[in-house]
């Protein structure tokens, strides 16, 4: 499918274009929509975004390449980004990252054979007080006292079951964290 003329995105595309006095400003939100449709930022997506924002495809491509959250190659269904920056690393994030790759049987940035998981390490995600932590498809995964391999095994098993089970698990951890914040 395409994003232009796709009912699923029509309203959002129009909203983004209306937010700015210059269409060009919509390039970032529209690249996210392209990524959502195609799973990564491919040439078709680039061409459509270029058309919508009145830009050259090469300009759009350079924007996509500048930012780390647009993927220039296909990714697994779940994109796990483990923070291994200083505050998290002081609490064992480097080790957790390596164990996760080992558990999934992939290299840094690789994708599991079943296409379920891509894993990589990233810089500070603004969750340093819950170190170590990660993001799964741009949603925070945090637990009280920090994530352990036991959490990650549970997360992998839940995702392999179905998306609902995974989201429920993440929400459960999230609720525990929120409770702690409200009580602090």
């Amino acid at each position, binding site marked *: 499918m395409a994003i232009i003329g796709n009912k699923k995105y029509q309203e959002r595309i129009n909203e983004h274009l209306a*937010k*700015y*006095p*210059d269409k*060009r*400003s*919509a*390039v*970032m*939100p529209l*690249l*996210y929509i392209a990524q959502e449709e195609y799973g990564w930022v491919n040439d078709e997506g680039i061409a459509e975004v270029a058309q919508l*924002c009145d*830009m050259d495809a090469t300009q759009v491509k*350079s*924007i996509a390449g*500048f*930012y*780390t*959250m*647009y993927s220039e190659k296909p990714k697994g269904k779940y994109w796990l980004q483990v923070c291994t*920056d*200083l*505050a998290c*690393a*002081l*609490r*064992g994030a*480097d*080790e*957790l990252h390596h164990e996760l790759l080992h558990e999934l049987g992939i290299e840094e940035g690789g994708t599991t054979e079943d296409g379920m998981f891509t894993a990589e390490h*990233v*810089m*500070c*995600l*603004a*969750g*340093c*007080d*819950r*170190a170590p932590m990660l*993001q799964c498809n*741009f*949603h*925070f995964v945090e637990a009280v006292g920090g994530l352990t391999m036991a959490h990650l095994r549970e997360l992998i098993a839940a995702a392999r079951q179905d998306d609902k089970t995974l989201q429920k698990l993440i929400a459960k951890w999230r609720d525990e964290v929120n409770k702690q*914040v409200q009580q*602090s």
Partner: protein
Amino acid sequence: MSETKHILLRWKDVKADFRKLAEYRKHEGFEGLKKALAAKPEEVIDVVKNSGLRGRGGAGFPTGVKWSFIPKQEPIKYFVVNADESETGTFKDRLIMETNPYQLLEGLLIGAYAIGAHTAYIYLRGEFWDIAAQLDACIEEMRKEGLVGKNILGSGYDCEIYTHLGAGAYICGEETALLNSLEGKLGQPRVRPPFPANKGGGLYGEPTVVNNVETIANVPWIMTHGADAYKAIGTEQSAGTKLYCVSGHVKKPGVYELPFSATFRELLVDICGGPSVEGRSFKALLPSGGSGPIVPLNDKVLDTRMSYEDTAKIGTIIGSASLIVMDDSVDITWVASKVTKFFKHESCGKCTPCREGTYWLDKVIDRIMAGEGSERDITLIENVAKNMAGITLCALGEFAANPIIHTIKQFPDDFKQHVKKDGKAAKPVALPAAGD
């Protein structure tokens, strides 16, 4: 510290859920905006000026003064909130937006009114996907009550607020890179002048104010309670309270709101419970994430007030107040390496000293880390770092020099123990273990 008055985390004092508009309104919510709209824009600017409020994005620039730079005669102006929050160890703006979103939105409207802007953007780091959605929902709630859009609260003043998600680039927190990114260009800093407040320098070339989330979230309280009440909190040159982000080796990491007059000891020992592992002691502190100078965490530092002027006296900055605490198990060479890798990754590549400098620093530190470096390597990186500072387009070049210059100054032995002696390889750096 039960008597501590919260400004940014007011919901703690009144025990209410400020994520709900009705709850927020029940507890002074939008009172500041009402007061502002009843006053002239320049009166609002004066109140903020007199309050002594300084920017919380790192540089501490007086907020009211910044607003007063906007030329009145220009028909189009923009107000932009910096919610990029990407400095290592910083997670305070996130907490404001997650727990007190309306206070940010109210402050934003007061600021926009004061400078005569009718459009405002909140630029959030890409990872704040859920927070942006929550803010969008809040804006729609406000619309239902006439708090945003046309004729706000019947005052005749119009203002629209939009959120914009970044996509993973630390440099977009730098205000001119942020404006480029918002315009759909590469997120690289601009040459100044013109400055964002000037015609030609802001968003789409129009005069623009860029303020940090925390800065703006102070504004409603200042309008409601007055400049004097705000100035009475904190220290002489650092008015008000600050959100301190504590991470690393303390028992209770988290975000804590304290007046600027509080000391590091009150926060790190009394509130955060001291070192996280029994039997260990504090060794070092990065008070402003990766970008500010590292200091030894000794009694002198612990007894220092966490204000702009007091931290300057101990050779560092309070900056964004992202306190990363390290105990005596940590090798500062490893810390310098981590932080250097961050800046190498985040350099936007526009200026040669920053792009090449971060590359070389990282390469040489890797060599030292492996026990393969020499004494000359330490001199080499110190020179590279010193040559980067002050000659780049934005402050990132300077930030990237800090970990080297200040580690060599404060912890010389940490580097030296890993360099070769008489041609023989030294002990490589040991990495911190999990669960510490």
